[in-house]
């Protein structure tokens, strides 16, 4: 028994504890649009038991009934934990007396001695239907059903938030159902393919609430069926095709014979109807031409912050550079800015954390990029700024955001020292690393400019370069030859003549030899030799003697044998003239001998 009481106490205590966890919420709720002279409900809900609920005056609204207080409480046991909740609601039935937008100020309630205020509400009051003279809701729906399912009673409008946008500027397309009928279900059968756009669907809440909207003098129940954010990918007139929806409409059966139950049980049938929503045309302006180099299509409104984990670090310790891009626009297009870390840093792939929210205004959120790198060597380094460029829609201009340039002081790491100690001054050699490839720089020296001229070679005049030496050498050739003829001395000529004369003489002698005229032959040979010698030695025949011939020849270093041969020939000739018994044989020998000697002398003389 005692245990039971304890348990109960614990149980009660737990519930109290659980209750104490939850803050008190006091909320007001009402439809955002109401129709003039049509009753609606305003509900205040508090999740605790309160007292002294006070509302201010409902101006422009007439209180038809209320407040009705209703209470609900629930217990929950989940995994042994018990929680309870109490909900008290106060319901007023109101009716608008004027059209326009009015506010219902907040109400107040006291819970546990503390005063809580509810939220205020803004309610739009629509005028009553043109044709209908203030019918009750049920009557209205019946009359509408009687009108049938026409395009006037049920239709879907596609609303485009902007019809003139820049490339990549988001626009919102809303498909909204307008109905006077009781639409049970509406599903999209065929959606346009949104060609030329990148689309981003917006999630709608699951339980769709009808709200009223006055359109063409009628109050339609409206609900948003589908919302999509579109990012035009190309300039020009882009067309959004028509969309088709399937709606299921509940229609009251109208029987000719009315049974008694009809009044109690309405019988309905579900009718399916295809509803086509209108298309639209969006004119997309191209982005201006002066795009920055690193622009990659980001359009919106961005801001950039960055931080470096530390500015003083030891070698081989990791450093993190955090770049935060926040804003709205087509955030998904943003690429990681390329940071050229100093060479010698070990850079890891950046860690990217996207936190995007899609709303009807477009995608917004933050993109956090963390660059981690490890400096491997000591020294002072500069981390260049990261850049992102985007097109600002509001200012209609390109903007470039930059992170600051960070100076990083890297002290010599312990690891680096340790290795150098161990391996006694060994330094890891690195090849000359090619960091980039670029063209060589321009020449800034003073230039000698000249009009492009044809080279001299090839012009007609240039051939004179060959012609002139040729002509000169031909002239030289001719002049030289003439000179040679002139300067070749008389001796030479006579020498030649002498030879010829001797041969002529000897020819005559040969003739005489053949005829056998002995005397004449010897005389002729002797004359020939004498004349030859006289010509050769340039001594007149008259003053020639054997003695001076031999001395002359000796002075010209003629061989002694040859001189002797000459003398011999002359002697033979002298003796033979007077010697009677010299035969044909001897004459022939002499002839041969003289020719031989003369030609020999000729050769030796020429050599000299």
């Amino acid at each position, binding site marked *: 028994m005692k245990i039971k009481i304890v348990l109960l106490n614990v149980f009660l205590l737990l519930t109290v504890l659980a209750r104490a966890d939850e803050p008190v919420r006091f909320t007001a709720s009402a439809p955002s649009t109401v129709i003039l002279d049509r009753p609606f409900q305003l509900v205040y809900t508090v999740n605790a038991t309160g007292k002294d609920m006070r509302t201010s005056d409902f101006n422009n609204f007439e209180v038809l009934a209320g407040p009705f207080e209703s209470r609900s409480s629930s217990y929950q046991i989940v995994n042994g934990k018990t929680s309870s909740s109490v909900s008290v609601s106060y319901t007023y039935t109101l009716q608008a007396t004027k059209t326009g937008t009015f506010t219902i100020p907040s109400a107040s309630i006291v819970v546990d001695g503390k005063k809580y205020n509810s939220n205020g509400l803004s309610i739009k009051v629509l005028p009553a239907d043109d044709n209908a003279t203030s019918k009750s809701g049920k009557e209205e729906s019946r009359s509408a059903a009687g009108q049938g399912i026409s395009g006037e009673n049920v239709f879907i409008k596609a609303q485009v938030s902007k019809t003139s946008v820049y490339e990549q500027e988001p626009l919102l397309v809303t498909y909204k159902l307008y109905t006077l009928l009781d639409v049970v279900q509406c599903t999209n059968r065929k959606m346009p393919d949104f060609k030329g756009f990148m689309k981003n669907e917006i999630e709608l809440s699951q339980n769709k609430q009808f709200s009223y909207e006055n359109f063409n003098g009628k109050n339609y129940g409206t609900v948003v069926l589908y919302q999509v954010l579109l990012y035009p990918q190309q300039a020009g007139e882009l067309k959004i095709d028509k969309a088709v929806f399937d709606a299921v409409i509940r229609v009251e059966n109208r029987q000719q014979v009315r049974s008694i139950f009809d009044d109690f049980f309405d019988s309905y049938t579900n009718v399916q109807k295809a509803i086509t929503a209108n298309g639209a045309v969006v004119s997309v302006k191209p982005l201006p031409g002066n795009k920055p180099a690193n622009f990659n299509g980001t359009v919106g409104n961005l801001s950039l912050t960055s931080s470096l984990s530390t500015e003083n670090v030891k070698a081989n310790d990791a450093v993190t550079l955090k770049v935060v891009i926040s804003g709205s626009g087509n955030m998904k297009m943003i690429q990681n800015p390329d940071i050229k870390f100093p060479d010698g840093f070990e850079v890891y792939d950046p860690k990217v954390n996207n936190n995007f929210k899609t709303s009807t205004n477009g995608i917004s959120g933050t993109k956090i990029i963390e660059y981690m790198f490890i400096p491997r060597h000591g020294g002072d380094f500069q981390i260049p700024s990261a850049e992102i460029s985007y097109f600002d829609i509001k200012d209609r201009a390109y903007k470039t955001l930059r992170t600051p340039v960070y100076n990083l002081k890297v002290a010599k790491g312990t690891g680096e020292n340790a290795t150098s100690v161990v391996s006694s001054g060994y330094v890891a050699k690195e090849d000359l690393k090619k960091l980039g490839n*670029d063209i060589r720089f321009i020449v800034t020296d003073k*230039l*000698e400019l000249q009009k492009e001229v044809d080279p*001299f070679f090839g012009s007609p005049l240039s051939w004179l370069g060959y012609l002139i030496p040729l002509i000169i*050498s031909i002239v030289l050739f001719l002049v030289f030859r003439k000179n040679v003829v002139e300067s070749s001395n008389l001796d030479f000529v006579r020498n030649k003549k002498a030879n010829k004369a001797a041969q002529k003489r000897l020819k005559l002698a040969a003739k005489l030899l053949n005829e056998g005229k002995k005397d004449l032959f010897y005389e002729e040979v002797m004359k020939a030799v004498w004349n030859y010698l006289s010509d050769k030695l340039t001594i007149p025949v008259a003053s020639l003697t054997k003695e001076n011939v031999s001395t002359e020849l000796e002075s010209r270093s003629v061989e002694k044998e040859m001189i002797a041969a000459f003398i011999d020939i002359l002697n033979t000739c002298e003796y033979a003239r007077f010697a009677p018994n010299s035969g044909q044989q001897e004459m022939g020998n002499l002839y041969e001998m003289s020719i031989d000697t003369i030609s020999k002398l000729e050769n030796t003389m020429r050599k000299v």
Partner: protein
Amino acid sequence: MKSKIILSAILLFFSFTCLTAQNEELTKAHNLYKKADYQGAAQVYEDIVTRYGVAPELYYNIGNAYYKAGEVGRSILNYERALRLSPNYEDAKVNLELAQTKIVDNIVQIPPFFIQRWIDSLIKLLDVDLWYTISVVVFVFTMLCFLYFIFGNNLIIRRFAFYGAFILLILTFVTGAFGLIRRNELQNHNQAIIMTGTVVIKSSPDKSGTDLFQLHEGTKVNIKSKLDEWTEIVVGNGNIGWLESKTIEKI
């Protein structure tokens, strides 16, 4: 006499002002280049070409400016022009190689026989007029040897002179031919660079001709012949076709 001095002074003054204006323009272009306004720099350089004349270095600078401005076709054209004037311009060669990595067409050139390559580089070593001068000097020596052969006294030297004259005569012809080849290279603008993004090469000088193949900006072609608005070209790998003359620019 006095008037002559004045006249020469005026001429000197004019040439001087011309030179300073030219230098001013050049520094302006250099500064634009340094400030990374490459398009502007290229414009000023081009202006200098039309107004004052050319130099290999100028073409080289234009090529650099266009390269930086992203116009690969124009940069290649100007590097090639620089190399036409000065075939051994090292910087231009290096930059041209770099620019050529950015062009789309990969035409496998049939490499010339190595002897032809050697001769080619030998020809490119000297200027036209330098080759000409060498040729004429060698010719004069040829004649001297020849004359000595005819009228010389010493038999041994005469024999040498005879063979020498022959060798020198051949040398005269060779060096002369080199000069003429070099001159042909310098003057004959029969090579061109494609300037537009893509060009379709047709089989005939007519828009209705069959499409043969496609060439892209920066590719070098040899001009074979011309007909009205069309040019017949030969590509490095031996393909022949017609294209519209406005799509190419001669080196």
